[in-house]
């Protein structure tokens, strides 16, 4: 399996935690979480997974005139004893890919616990507090994370025709190899899933900060929350229909399909314009 791993260095780690994020989830939660961790803590890449077995490489995609290419990289922050894995979601050979992540965690870094981050679509308003919950690989790690109030005592089975998430698949793979972990989920309001949701990001980062003693300063992300709130308040003032829809969501009422679509479209366009 090591043929698929390319090591760029050997960071000095003791018994680190690992945070796993993917490049495409609701509200870009994974990408934003990793960006924050790298920026604030100065992470250094030390390993990556060769893409050839796991991604279609028949060409490249372009986003805003920039060529995209699959990325699957491990970063280390030795002074915080932390490893980050950030990746494009693989298209093939998932089990092999997930085992490579666990290989690096166990055999190269002696990771003690692993956290996956996932944004999920919520039907509530952006003004509501962000919920935060987790699924655990074992009752032991559930107990050790009890002070963070992550558990909702969830009972769940994938419905017929559905598929488990890649994070669940990873947690199961890690569990088979006796690596403890938790999948962390933050619901992102549906009309912010293609934009940023700094409130969700702060929810994840606050947990990591408390659990892993990262010493974060949240000034920047707080400013982003304030800015987004102001933009959306302005949009509500400018467009009565949007205000009516968000007010309905705040009152726990459901939107019609037309209202739902219009809210998504108008918010997306408005935020794009604001961001220039």
């Amino acid at each position: 399996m090591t043929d698929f791993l390319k090591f760029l260095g050997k960071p000095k780690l003791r018994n680190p935690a690992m945070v796993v994020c993917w490049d495409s989830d609701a509200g870009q939660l994974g990408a934003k979480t990793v960006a924050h961790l790298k920026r604030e803590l100065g992470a250094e890449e030390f390993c990556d997974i060769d893409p050839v077995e796991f991604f279609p490489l028949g060409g490249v995609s372009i986003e805003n005139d920039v060529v995209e290419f699959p990325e699957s990289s491990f970063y280390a922050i030795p002074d915080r004893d932390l490893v980050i894995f950030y990746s494009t979601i693989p298209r093939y050979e998932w089990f092999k890919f997930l085992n490579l992540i666990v290989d690096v965690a166990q055999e190269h870094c002696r990771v003690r616990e692993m956290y996956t981050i996932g944004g999920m679509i919520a039907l509530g308003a952006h003004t509501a507090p962000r919920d935060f919950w987790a699924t655990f690989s074992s009752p032991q790690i559930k107990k050790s994370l009890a002070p963070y109030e992550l558990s909702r005592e969830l009972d769940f089975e994938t419905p017929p025709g559905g598929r488990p998430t890649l994070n669940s698949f990873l947690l199961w793979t890690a569990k088979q190899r006796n690596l403890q972990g938790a999948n962390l989920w933050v619901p992102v309001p549906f009309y912010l899933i293609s934009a940023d949701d700094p409130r969700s990001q702060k929810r994840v980062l606050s947990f990591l900060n408390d659990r892993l003693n990262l010493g974060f300063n949240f000034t920047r992300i707080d400013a982003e929350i304030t800015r987004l709130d102001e933009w959306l308040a302005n949009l509500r003032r400018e467009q009565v229909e949007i205000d009516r829809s968000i007010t309905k969501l705040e009152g726990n009422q459901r939107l019609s399909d037309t209202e739902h679509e219009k809210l998504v479209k108008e918010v997306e366009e408005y935020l794009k314009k604001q961001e220039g």
Partner: protein
Amino acid sequence: MALILHREPALTNPDMIVGWPGIGNIGLITVDTIRQAVQAEEMGEIEPWDFFYPSKVIIRGSVLTDMEFPTSKFYYKRLANRDIVFFVGEEQPVSRESMYAEGARAYEMANMVLDVAEKFGCGRIYTSGAAVAITHHTHKPRVWAVANQKKILAELKTYPNMVLMSEVEGRGDQGSITGLNGLLVGTAKKRKCPGVCLMGEIPDYLSRVPFPYPKASQAVIEVLSEALNLNVDPHVLDGMIGQMDTVLESVYQQFPAEIKERLEQRKETPQAKPRATITEEDQKWLKEHIDDFFKKGDKGV
């Protein structure tokens, strides 16, 4: 990745019958129906992790307690004349963009199935799938057959309601079988193991419908039952066929009049005579709309 055999029964003169899902789920229903009818017993499985994405996660009290994967299981049954080994795969391993199994993973699975056939001394492999045909859903489907050795063809011709692929009207002597039902008989050929693929006819205009077509499975079951002397009740699928006939007739009645008119001409044409084809435009329309009939809730079916 591993093959796990829970039992290794001594079998006499066995053949193997193999089924995977595909168009109309014809192959899978065929094999699973026979397996249940003869009350075959489970004997082993292929570990799923390297072949499949999981199908179900089970969480209890926020703890991930289990993960389920599509199964690929072997069964056996001792019968008076010959024993039978069954292989039933809940999914075909898809490794790249194709909706059908292909490439290294599919070949690997085909070889693992054949390893079991060889281990138990199976004399012949039967796979089953769909034959997309210019036919009408009110007709009894025929069973198309191909073999991986020329010497088997003469025997196949003796079975009722069966036609060799090259003898199907307008097909000529070229053809192909997509997915593992084809790949397995090809791989068997490479390993010098006799193999036959039996394909139940499904009308071209129903080949994209996301529902089973048990009428074709019934036709294949009849052939296999006779070929292997299985004594499976020929009416075993009558209930399911009745239900699907109602659903399909309802969909059919919603087709545009001009397409239906062309298809109705097929109804009057006897089996084994060239039938009216639908135009490319009709095919495009069906391709674009067939799913809609199944999404209309109380307006549709």
